């Protein structure tokens, strides 16, 4: 490996040496002197009016320093806002404590600050809340009925939004003709359910706030995935100037989107620290984590696919109902909107219509979770493709093949408004079929059936529109933040580089990735690049920061900043080499005379020294060798691919055994294959959890029944198969380096691939796996029903 070819290298992670020795520093490990600890009293009811709160006993208990009830919250403190507010979307905020009534189990009602977490929890027993239980609604379709209990009374009903995708693409052309559905030779219908599950980082949420009365400064140690936006919102809610808040981010024990949102505890801990003048710390325990950290997915979908009898798709029409939970959270109904935008997937769908309805229920709010509505859309269309294949007597691979957008048809404007920049969808499908030896699998399947073995093959193609995003488009979508990513690169007087990024690493190896990109473009050793992250005082503002699909945007900001540095290095080098700048080039960390027979060059370190000494700078150049570039991408990038699953179903027990899992991924050029494989594996495992095991279960009163890992089942070593990864590389035409986001893509296809494989396996019984998760119990029930 030459020192300049860092992009594409399986570079070991620079994050690892600390983490493998137990020297990581996570939020729970932050222990400031004289820290006090917070515990939260949470609603035990799904829906109840709060008649009174009596905290007098708690206030006198040993070690208690502060009790916060709604009456104790300073008047100037405001709720956190909803960031994504589509036209027609009802408004709400995220309050620090429940306001007059509780709307889901786990909603914060009061908080105690004491000398230890143990004492704070003891004191929760000293708070007496008089609740008047109300009728609850937990089914998102029942929530839409006229006589359903209304959760947010000021709304008048439970509909947060009814948004219609009426077939308009990004060019403003309408692609929806209802008569196509009246006249089609074939109509395929499906009703699908995606369970309520979530990212569940192994590290729960937590926060430490430290108010400095002398300087009027609040330092917040936070696990927010979007530290700068978090600072903006926290400062505004507390009535502080933005620069009076500093957000420091330690190691994060997984985020998966769940830590993107703002939460009541962020306000409570800050209020307490400002009131007491001491550091205050809150770390969620697992039970409160499961009931108070946002949930995800949770949709009911109804689709109609119109086709010609030869399998050509004429149109897709549907309804998506999102079980929103008790109120809007930070991203509003964003995920459900993305479902509507993603559902056309890889196919030439000429007519499209989708009703998206977000309904409130007495459950934990649903919001940001890796994939963000995309996996739900892919599940919808990819199940429908298999249903269509079955109805028409076609092979599932063939119906996909014949309807795919072709490589020469980009940019593709899908009829839901998304623009795909590039891809080679057929190549991904064919590679998956070849890697799995599809024809042999089909032949074997027949043979195995005769032996009583129910083997199924499931395919799911996917697109992942990533690299959010062009800020004007975010504005057009009423998403109230920018989509750019800034990076500052500084060369110090010794010629070593420091990259400052506003991105927050959550475990993907962001620090390694950006160091690779910087070393590659500066032509220096990776060890000579430091990456600074996790401090809003030092790093450029970023308003978006969903790092899972953002490396592409941040990497481009780094590359662009380095281009400016290299241009300045050449200008300074010209004076040092007594040559014209036009005759010089920058390569391998050196400024050299182009094509000179005798090597005439100066190193980056020599140039940097001159830049700091400033003895002979070129006219118009200032000292130092540094640049900041804020990159606002001109378009989204479209990663894509295909998964193929082979599995056996035990019809006696409903148990599923994987036989093969093939992945073909196209995320453009790969910066670090090791890390890309890790992201794909992890994304798939997480989606397999939602496909087979994980589900938040509520009873009809809104009581959460899955409040431990005994009831909410995460996939373990024996639940996740080995995966075989192949790549197709289609560079994005409009990003420097051609990179595409890939951290979320693994979550998109597994749900459909598994459901398609299970349905395929059970073809002789006519079972359709249309509801996720396909737990053994649920599948066994379907098999019993089918076999009488």
């Amino acid at each position: 490996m030459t020192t300049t070819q860092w992009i594409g290298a399986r570079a070991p992670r620079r994050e690892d040496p600390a983490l493998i020795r137990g020297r990581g520093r996570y939020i729970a490990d932050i222990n400031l002197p004289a820290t006090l600890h917070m515990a939260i009293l949470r609603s035990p009811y799904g829906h109840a009016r709060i008649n009174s709160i009596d905290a007098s006993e708690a206030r006198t208990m040993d070690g208690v320093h502060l009790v916060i009830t709604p009456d104790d919250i300073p008047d100037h403190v405001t709720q956190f806002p909803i960031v994504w507010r589509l036209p027609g979307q009802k408004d709400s905020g995220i309050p620090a404590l429940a306001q007059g009534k509780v709307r889901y189990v786990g909603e914060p009602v009061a908080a105690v600050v004491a000398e230890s977490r143990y004492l704070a929890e003891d004191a929760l027993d000293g708070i007496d809340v008089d609740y008047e239980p109300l009728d609850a609604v937990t089914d998102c379709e029942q929530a839409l009925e006229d006589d359903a209990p209304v959760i947010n009374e000021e709304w008048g009903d439970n509909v947060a939004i009814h948004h219609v995708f009426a077939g308009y693409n990004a060019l403003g052309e309408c692609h929806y003709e209802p008569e196509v559905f009246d006249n089609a030779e074939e109509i395929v219908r499906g009703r699908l359910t995606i369970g309520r599950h979530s990212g569940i980082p192994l590290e729960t949420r937590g926060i430490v706030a430290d108010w400095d009365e002398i300087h009027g400064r609040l330092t917040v140690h936070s696990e927010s995935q979007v530290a700068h936006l978090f600072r903006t919102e926290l400062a505004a809610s507390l009535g502080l100037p933005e620069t009076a808040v500093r957000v420091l981010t330690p190691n994060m024990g997984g985020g998966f989107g769940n830590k993107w949102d703002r939460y009541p505890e962020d306000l409570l801990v800050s209020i307490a620290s400002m009131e007491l003048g001491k550091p205050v710390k809150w770390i969620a325990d697992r039970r409160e984590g499961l009931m108070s950290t946002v949930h995800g997915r949770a949709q009911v979908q109804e689709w109609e696919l119109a086709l010609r009898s030869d399998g050509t798709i004429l149109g897709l029409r549907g309804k998506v109902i999102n079980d929103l939970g008790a109120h809007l959270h930070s991203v509003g109904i964003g995920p459900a909107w993305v479902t509507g935008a993603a559902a056309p997937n890889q196919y030439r769908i000429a007519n499209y219509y989708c009703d998206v309805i977000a309904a409130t229920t007495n459950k934990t709010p649903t919001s940001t979770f890796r994939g963000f509505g995309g996996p739900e859309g892919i599940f919808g269309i990819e199940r429908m493709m298999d249903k269509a294949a079955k109805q028409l007597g076609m092979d599932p691979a063939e119906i996909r093949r014949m309807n795919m957008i072709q490589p020469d048809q980009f940019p593709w404007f899908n009829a839901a408004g998304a623009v795909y920049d590039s891809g080679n969808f057929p190549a991904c499908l064919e590679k998956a079929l070849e890697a799995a030896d599809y024809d042999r699998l089909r032949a074997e399947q027949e043979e195995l059936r005769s032996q009583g073995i129910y083997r199924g093959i499931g395919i799911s193609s996917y697109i992942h529109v990533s690299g959010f995003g062009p800020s004007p488009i975010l504005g057009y979508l009423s998403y109230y933040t920018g989509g750019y990513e800034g990076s500052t690169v500084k060369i110090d007087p010794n010629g070593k580089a420091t990259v400052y990024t506003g991105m927050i690493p959550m475990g993907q190896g962001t620090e390694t990735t950006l160091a690779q990109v910087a070393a590659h473009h500066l032509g220096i050793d990776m060890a000579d690049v430091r990456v600074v992250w996790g401090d809003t005082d030092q790093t450029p503002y970023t308003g978006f920061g969903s790092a899972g699909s953002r490396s592409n945007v941040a990497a481009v900001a780094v590359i662009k900043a380095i281009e400016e540095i290299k241009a300045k290095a050449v200008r300074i080098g010209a004076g040092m080499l007594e040559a014209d700048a036009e005759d010089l080039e920058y390569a391998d960390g050196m400024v050299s005379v182009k094509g000179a027979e005798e090597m005439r060059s100066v190193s980056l370190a020599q140039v940097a020294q001159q830049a700091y000494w400033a003895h002979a700078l070129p006219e118009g150049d200032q000292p130092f060798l540094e640049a900041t570039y804020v990159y606002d991408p001109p378009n989204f990038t479209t990663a894509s691919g295909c998964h193929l699953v082979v599995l056996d179903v035990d019809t006696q027990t409903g148990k599923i055994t994987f036989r093969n899992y093939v992945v073909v991924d196209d995320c453009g050029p790969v910066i670090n294959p090791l890390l890309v494989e890790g992201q794909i594996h992890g994304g798939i495992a997480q989606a397999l959890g939602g496909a087979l095991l994980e589900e938040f279960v509520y009873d009809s009163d809104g009581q959460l029944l899955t409040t431990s890992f005994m009831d909410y089942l995460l996939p373990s070593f024996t639940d996740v198969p080995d995966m075989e990864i192949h790549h197709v590389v289609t560079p994005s035409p409009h990003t420097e380096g051609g990179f595409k986001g890939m951290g979320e893509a693994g979550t998109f296809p597994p749900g459909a691939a598994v459901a398609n494989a299970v349905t395929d396996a059970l073809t002789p019984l006519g079972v359709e796996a249309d509801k996720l998760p396909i737990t053994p119990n649920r599948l066994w029930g379907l098999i019993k029903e089918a076999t009488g």
Partner: protein
Amino acid sequence: MMGQVAITLNVNGRNQTTLAEPREILADVLRDRLGLTGTHLGCEHGVCGACTVLLDGEMVRSCLLFAVQAQGASITTIEGVEQDGELHPMQKAFSEYHGLQCGFCTPGMILAGVDLLKRNPDPSPDEVREDMGGNICRCTGYQKIVESVLGAAREMNEVTS
């Protein structure tokens, strides 16, 4: 406030005495009283394995024991896996094979891997999956953890043979 009692533990080869309430779990005492924050708490009900430590050589969940129950015991935490400033082959393998992402489950995983290879120096991939099934990872999808443990086993077997 509950009374505190003196607890003496041998942690990573060093005798340490601390005061703690009888209701304090071992993980909290290791983390908050002894400053060994490499032991992580992922569930506090014994399912996830992040808080795994070795107690008198046996793998235990430090969230399911009161510290007073460990009185006089020898405990190895992730901070004690390194020997004489040299990384354990299991630690090296986790980095080499990308067996960690966020790193939160990693201390427990490494200790579980070390414990497995003590009992079964040359496990099959299925044996690794079966044996380590009590530790949950949310990032990696497990495949590269299995590769890491197998890689460490190869490395350790080469050294000993």
